[in-house]
């Protein structure tokens, strides 16, 4: 691990200012992904700003009837929250489908959104990777791609976003609340938060340098049946091959997003009009522009069948 200086931030504004002053500074909260990457020298911050002392760990009712989740709420606490379990069940389900008990005790709400891809080529410093080393090329294209993206990718990158939580938040239309280094507040709909790779796969979110996430808010509950179904290579503690987050209403209408297939949680609002026609039509509309590889084209069929299982469960 490279040497770095360390400070414990005294306020949100001070943290954002400190980060804006040093190009190589990083915030650290749970640290479960950042330290992993620092040990591999994939992340090389020269300064760490520890934000764990800033509070921001409350889950509160929002004025509009929604829910305001502090950026530092741990994954365990968010999954266990009674309001989340009752009114936003798929968020609880998505959280407990991810990582291990130990990691969920440290990992935070904001950190989960900001975690990096687990593409094996990104994680191997000996291989070219446009995300780790812009312009060096993509080793995944033409390589081992079973886990990787099937839609929304580019010639530069076919990595997936690894989060389960973010897929549920995409269905729930969450909004990410931030403070910029100049003190200005910003509200970013989750649909606009993560980027597709394009020519700049190293840019993964629309956050500016030093911009600090303070909370994630959920709109008022929308009812319906909440389902998160994750398909993976082992029964627990593995990333998704495909996951489906869905809220299905009694009349068969609803919302659906797919994890494990793209550089961001994959939701196509117009495809949801097909839900009444069933899984095949909906999956076809969701993945109409898919460009899978020979090794990961199974994800297309798997998405359809997983969605089929979700819709059956919704009718039970």
């Amino acid at each position, binding site marked *: 691990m490279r040497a770095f200086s360390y400070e414990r931030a005294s306020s949100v504004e001070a943290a954002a200012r400190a980060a804006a002053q040093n190009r190589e500074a990083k915030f650290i909260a749970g640290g479960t992904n950042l330290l992993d990457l620092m040990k591999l020298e994939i992340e090389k911050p020269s300064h760490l700003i520890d934000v764990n002392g800033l509070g921001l760990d409350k889950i509160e009712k929002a004025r509009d009837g929604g829910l305001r989740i502090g950026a530092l709420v741990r994954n365990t606490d968010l999954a266990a929250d009674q309001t989340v379990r009752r009114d936003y069940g798929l968020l609880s389900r998505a959280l407990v489908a991810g990582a291990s008990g130990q990691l969920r005790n440290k990992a935070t709400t904001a950190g989960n959104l900001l975690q990096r891809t687990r593409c094996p080529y990104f994680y191997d410093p000996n291989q070219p990777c446009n995300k780790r080393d812009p312009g060096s090329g993509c080793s995944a294209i033409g390589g081992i791609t079973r886990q990787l993206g099937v839609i929304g990718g580019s010639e530069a990158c076919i990595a997936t976003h690894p989060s389960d939580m973010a897929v549920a938040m995409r269905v729930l239309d969450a909004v990410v609340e931030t403070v910029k280094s100049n003190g200005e507040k910003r509200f970013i709909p989750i649909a606009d938060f993560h980027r597709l790779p394009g020519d700049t796969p190293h840019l993964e979110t629309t956050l500016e340098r030093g911009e600090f996430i303070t909370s994630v808010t959920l709109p008022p509950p929308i009812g319906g049946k909440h389902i998160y179904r994750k398909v993976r290579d082992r*029964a*627990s503690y593995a990333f998704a091959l495909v996951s489906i987050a869905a809220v299905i209403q009694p009349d068969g209408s609803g919302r659906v997003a797919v994890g494990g297939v793209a550089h961001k949680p994959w939701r196509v609002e117009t495809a949801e009009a097909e839900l009444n026609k069933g899984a095949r039509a909906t999956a076809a509309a969701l993945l109409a522009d898919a460009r899978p590889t020979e090794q990961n084209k199974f994800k297309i069929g798997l998405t359809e069948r997983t969605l089929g299982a979700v819709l059956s469960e919704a009718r039970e």
Partner: protein
Amino acid sequence: MSSAATVAIAGAATGVCAADIRREIVEEQTKVVFEVNGETKHLTLDNRTTLLDALREHLHLTGTKKGCDHGQCGACTVIVNGRRINSCLTLAVMHEGEKITTIEGLGRPGNLHPMQAAFVKHDGFQCGYCTPGQICSSVAVLQEIDADIPSHVTENLIAQATVTSAEIRERMSGNICRCGAYSNILDAIKEVAGVPA
């Protein structure tokens, strides 16, 4: 000549104030005070020191094991402020004022924690390398179920979570045992939880 002095002279030659450079060197270390197994510890550590390395290399509590060092195996599991975490994926300096319990703090020969005694009774290990992490994790798992924290296999999110084999297996998935002592580990945990094997 010490290396610090060499740096200071080199800095002076390029017009950088020697005091600034000395500060940069000092800033790579941070003081931290935390409690380990009931004892207050004052440490000044290189910022890069993980909690795991602080426990093993600085405090000589070698019960906690380093397996993968990347949060994948669970051998380094300790309990911090009542919660199990991977001590390899956290910096020691981030634990100012916190209370850390390691396997040594749970119990000692002659005065074993019930979970330690149950692992011995049920032969919940072979080589023993993952065992301290397995035991710290097990103790915390039963507390998590008591605290009504749901898991991936909890059928009803609204009902209180219960101790079942499926719940224990799922919640222990962050602790790998390459000897494959899983079925005996499960028996040990169930005995402590008071559910029939």
